[in-house]
């Protein structure tokens, strides 16, 4: 199954997310890389190899939506699943309208995550 071998990049400034999410994603059968900021991700090789991005909205420096625009400009169509600690449906709908696979409010369920990842990887 090709799915099992997909590379998911997690970009979040919150360490607990960077620690907890890879274990769960590997349990889903994905390869995982974590980045503490958008800038860090843009500088890595994963920018070309990632199959999906799990992206925090509010980060110091470049925010999630900004990275989304940046990648779009660079022609990177990597599917993005946003995660955020601030629950704001308007923002969520806006982001989806702009092409995001989904926007999950922390704390989100494993099911919601897996569902979103499935859609993301399907969309690829």
């Amino acid at each position, binding site marked *: 199954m090709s799915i099992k071998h997909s590379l998911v990049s997690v970009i979040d400034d919150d360490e607990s*997310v960077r620690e907890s999410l890879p274990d*769960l994603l590997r*349990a889903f059968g994905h390869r995982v890389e974590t980045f503490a900021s958008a800038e860090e991700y843009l500088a890595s090789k994963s920018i070309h190899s990632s199959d999906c991005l799990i992206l925090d909205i509010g980060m110091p420096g470049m925010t999630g939506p900004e990275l989304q625009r940046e990648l779009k400009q660079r022609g990177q169509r990597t599917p993005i699943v946003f995660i955020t*600690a601030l629950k704001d449906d308007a923002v969520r709908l806006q982001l989806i309208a702009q092409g995001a696979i989904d926007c999950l409010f*922390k704390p989100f369920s494993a099911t919601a995550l897996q569902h979103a990842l499935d859609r993301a990887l399907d969309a690829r």
Partner: protein
Amino acid sequence: MNLDLSRILDSLPGMVMSARPDGRVDFLNEQWSEYAGRGVILTQVSELFGRELFERWRLVVASGQPQEMEARLRRFDGQHRRFLIRFRPMQDGHGDVARWCAFAMDVEETRTERQILNHIPAGIGVLTSTGELDSVNDHIVRYFGKSEDVIKKWASADIVHPEDLPRVIATIEHAVATGEAYDTEHRLLGAEGNYRWFHVRAQPLRDENGKVRQWYALHIDVDERKRAEEALRGREVDLRRIINALPTTAWSTRPDGFVDFLSDQWLAYAGMPYEQAGGFGWGDVIHPEDAGRLFTYWQGCLASGEAVDVEARMRRYDGEYRWFLFRANPLRDENGAIVKWYGTNIDIEDRKRADEELRESERNLAQIINTIPTVAWSTLPDGYTDFLHHRWLDYAGMSAEEAEGWGWSNAIHPDDLPGLADNWRRCLATGIPNDAEARIRRFDGEYRWFLFRGSPLRDEAGSIVKWYGTNVDIEDRKRAEEALAESERQSRLIVDTIPGLVSVFGPDGETEVINKQFLGYLGQTLEEFENWRDNGTVHPDDLQHHVDAFAQSLTSGEPMDFETRLKRHDGTYRWFHLRGNPARDPDGHVVRWYCLMTDIDDRNRAEEAVRESEVTLRRIINTLPTTAWATSPDGFVEFLSDRWLNYAGVTWEQAAGFGWGDVIHPDDAGRLFSYWQDCLASGERVDVEARMRRYDGTYRWFLFRANPLRDENGTIVKWYGTNIDIEDRKNADEALRESERYSRLIVDTIPGMIALFAPDGELNGANHQLLEYFSQPLEVVKDWATNGMTHPDDLQSYIDAFTLSINTREPYEIETRLRRCDGHYRWFQIRGLPLYDGGGNVIRWYGLLTDIDDRKRAEEELRRSEAFLVDAQRVSGTGSFAWVLGSETVTCSDQTYRIYGFDPAEPVTVDLIRSRTHPENYPTFQQVMDRSQQEGSDFDYETKLLMSDQSIKYVRVVAHNERNKEGRLELRGAVRDVTASRLAEEALSKARADLARVARVTSLGVLTASIAHEVNQPLAGIVNNANACLRLLDSDTPNLKVAMDTARRTIRDGNRAADVIARLRALFGKNPFAIQEVNLNEAVQEVIALSRGDIQRSRVILHTELADDLPSVAGDRIQLQQVVLNILRNALEAMSGVGDRQRRLLIKTEREEGNQVRFSVRDMGIGFGAADAESLFEAFYSTKTDGMGIGLSVSRSIIDTHNGRLWAIPNDGPGVTVSFSIPVYVRNEPPATNVAHNDAARENTQ
């Protein structure tokens, strides 16, 4: 018409017109339309051109040919001027007229000039600079009878007379070469073929560089005059010939007396050439004695124009002077002006001589007639007696007929007749009279001696026409003569031998004998001396007296005794004492006078000198401005000067001796006389005062001063004295004494200290009060400068001022400390005033010492307190000021000057203060100025100053406005520099604002988000870990180690979430959100009060419209206030950039339909545009943690919580109105709450 072309036409120096082919004018340039007047209508050509030109214009149009004409054009003001107008057709390709153009040039002026030129009654030729003829006027044209063009082509030779030609050419060439004006006379050939004389005067016309441009030659026809002159010249030659042939001299002069003609006779007589005698040279031949008189007379005639008729001697060629009669008449022109004098000199020498002789005879005649008391007669020239005085006839007892002719000789004594007849014949023959004596028989037969004296009368020719004569009875004299003949002979002997000058006179004074010595002295003969009365023997000054005294003695017979000066042979006069005694005959008749002259010249001279010196002395004495007198040793007054007599108004006779005593004042007389007696006795000098009466009866004081004059033995021989008028001085003294008495009175009663100083500054008097103060006698006080009475610190300046005053005699005023008797120094003001005598000399100084110690101390006190005040002002940075409303200047303390940074030398004005005020504060400034008009206003405001170095200063001004003493409104107050505290406050308020912003961030909506974020993060970790753990355990080969890790991380994140909650609780625990009844007006007023400083700093003018009947609202008072504050702050911030309009803020509360209360803030800030409106509302949702967005978003969430509504709308004008509405408070109704739910948590807890 193209615009640019029309401009060109407008700028042409002439008038331009254009017309259509049919003659209708369709364009006038600027000049023409200006000339014609703006109102002129182009199409009315007849009016524009005038009737005359219009007609001609029609002809021009009809002809289609260019034309040139002069015509008069009407100016806008109705005047007409002459123009040269050129019409020209413009033709199109077919040769048809397409347009007419006209150019008109004003020739009015040139025409006038030309007219003048042509009407001048003289020819005018204009020559080029090289002398070529350029143009001529009509006059010349007429003269030559040819056109100007023809004349121009002529050569000079064609018109100028051949004789004059070379001269004319030379003249013109010279003029052309030098540029000098020329002047010639020459003949020009006229139209009739005759030459006429012209006087040509030519003047160059130069350009601005001085170069000759043209010559103007004026030709004046002088032919007539010239001819007349020629004729005259011919006549003159003839005339001269005639004159020279005349047997008399003749001459002529110019009006000024300059002789321009002298006839040959004249020259021959004087033996002078004309060159020498012409002009004024003739004066040399006039006799020096007559010259002055003649010239004066001649000048008079020249001036008055009166005919000359005067006599004077002229020197003949041989040096002899002869008398001439000068006669001359002026020749006048038709205007009556003298053009010449013509005169002759007629030799009148011979006539003159005859005249002289005639005059002599007349004199004799007069003599005779004067002697008529005797008897007179006259005869014809041949001696035939035609007249005998009746007394003669009476005496002789003859009838006139008997005596006529020679009949009278019958009465002559036969013995005397032959002698007499001889003498008479001789007289008749020679014409020289000669006295004769002869006896004439009286009617009674007795012969008596008579003196016969005759004199001829001559006519003008000198011929004797008659003899006049007298016979004087000399019988008595003759007899006495004879009687004395003997004694005379004797006497002569004596007389001649006397060593003195002796003269003997007859009883009638006729000289009989002069002794040799006398003759020798006189250097005269006896005959000469007989004429002593006339020949200068007696000094002229003495003559009258001499003659009188002599005559008196002769008449009275009293001896002669007088002094007289007689001339010595060498011409010098010497004084003689003449004494004469009469010798009488037995009958007592004086028969002879014997006179002895004694030379007293030397004596007299000495006397004279003495007299002269006395006169001089007397004059000196009398001119002395004082009286003088002299007395004998016994006091008898021998001399009083005129001045003395004039003063007393008495005569010398009255005052002499002891008469002067009468004028002494009775009160003084006794004293004076006894004093005078004492002086006379002791010989001591007199020095006493007494009053003397003046001529007008007033008495004046005099100082009598006299000294005795002693001879060599020491005996007093005389007293000399003067009386000096001392009335004025005396009066002055009296006045002085009076003033002093008065002063003394004042001095001793005055409640002050008075010191008196001598003119040199020495203290010589002090009043009681002064001595008491020092408790010292005057002798000690005198040494005030050295004895420590004056305070050492003041001493020098006092001495300086005092000395200066003494020297300059100016009053002084000085303050100094003087030691009282108890040792205390007290301050005194000393005023020194000089007292002058009548002559302006200081005779005393008065010093007034006023105790000013208390005042001085008060002054010191005041000064000290003032100094304190100044210090206080400086230290506290507070200045004071006072301003009388409406006045120009504001009185400011030094510190105020410093605060405002004003130049201390400059007066502070309201405008100056305004100029220092920061522009932002102008409204405040104006408010203050407005309010200051109200009496009793208090001010307390802060204002910002913009200093000259652009730095900002904050000042707080506290002032009060009330009426001052003069009843005018005066603003008085203090200015304090609060820059430092204001800056600190600003810093503080900034910090507060920062804090507030933090508070806003953490408040409510943001707070929830914040809390959610903080909590969700660990929750996300927990959920993820738990999920991972489940997945790990659920797999076929569970990785227990990793599962355990995730479980551990779950616990850790759970703790983290708990920590967050704990922190939040700690932060908000004390301020639980509580809905209660809130009075919104009160809450708003509290916020305004809290923000007063902000509002003022933002320079915002706040208005409030808080509804009175506003119901309470339901809500959290603090949160609502936070919203109000937020909105207010936003409004202030929005207006911070506004500088061009007033920053007004309206805060309003009102009741709204639907049981709502509305609060709104209307600002006049920058507002927002259509685009900004979007972002403003967007901002409500933005996550930005700064600025308006968060403020409004926080506010909105608060209002939301209160079930209210918050919105913002742009104003019609500038700015925005932000409002919120919340429900009215209803009792017993639980307020609505809005609880947030966490879906995710809920999801996970399911």
